[in-house]
């Protein structure tokens, strides 16, 4: 079944397109100076965008890599820097506070230097007895 459009031959279609193209090209040649100037400015603006964007793009390319590196370092620090369970000090209990607030304990803390000297003296004496 023939389409109604088939009444035009291919050569007629090509002639028509060629004339349309010629007229269009002439109208392009006839663009005024103001329009050409505005086109030129628009082009320069677009290209300036490339210059400023190139640096950003090259910098932006490093962002994912830097993020991955930072995450890796953080994970390694968390894993290797985790203290052993036995080293964790138990939280202070109420009894500890009672001892610290006890009057005798305060006196002991005040004479801490004295008690240290006694301990050191006792150790030295024991060493002399052994020798």
């Amino acid at each position, binding site marked *: 079944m023939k389409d*109604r*459009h088939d009444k*035009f031959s291919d050569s*007629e*279609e090509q*002639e*028509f*397109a060629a*004339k*349309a*193209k010629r*007229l*269009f090209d*002439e*109208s*392009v*040649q*006839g*663009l*005024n100076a103001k*329009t*050409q100037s*505005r*086109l030129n400015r*628009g*082009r320069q*603006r*677009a*290209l300036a*965008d*490339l*210059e400023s*964007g*190139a640096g950003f793009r*090259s910098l932006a390319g490093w962002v994912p890599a830097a993020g991955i590196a930072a995450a890796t370092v953080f994970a390694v620090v968390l894993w290797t820097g985790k203290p052993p369970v036995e080293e964790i000090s138990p939280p202070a209990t109420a009894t500890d506070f009672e001892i610290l607030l006890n009057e005798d304990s305060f006196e002991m803390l005040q004479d801490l230097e004295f008690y240290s000297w006694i301990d050191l003296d006792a150790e030295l004496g024991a060493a002399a007895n052994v020798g």
Partner: protein
Amino acid sequence: MSACAGEIAISCTSEDQTGVTTLHREQELDRFLAGVERRAIRIAEISIRDRDEALDLVQNAMIKLVRTYADRPSAEWTPLFYRILQNGVRDHHRRQAVRNRVMVWFGRPGNDDRDFDVIAAAPDPAGRTPDQQLESGEAMRSLELALQDLPGRQREAFMLRTFEGLDVAATAAAMGCSEGSVKTHYSRAVHSLRETLGEHWQ
């Protein structure tokens, strides 16, 4: 120490190469845009019947192409550029339709495209005799009016194929449709234009 110097040399060379590549790409883009911009402004102008708006659309298309597709092979730039431009044209028509509906609702006439003065907006022909100018000018004005009466997709297919010289595949890429659709739109456009313009136009 020599290893360090080597690293610096390699780094400098790499930066130089990047700079040269960017400069080369910028020159390529400049040539491409300079080659396409004048046809693009006429194609956009015929589509939306306003040179200032058409200039804005072409400039936006340039900026978007550079921002988004500068790294793509230069052979792809033409269909990509026209795809951006055609999307801009379609957005313009949508905005215009909404604006007209709103203006009608307020009881004021919308900005009727029929008010467009084709003669006033026609470019100044150059390098031809007055008779030739008149004849060509009249013929082009008739063609523009006939194109404006076509459905949008047919107009796009005809202008990209005939005015820009894109092949079927590139036109399909620019229009975002299949090659078969391009052939159908183009064929219908040619026959509608011929019927509208009449035998004497040829």
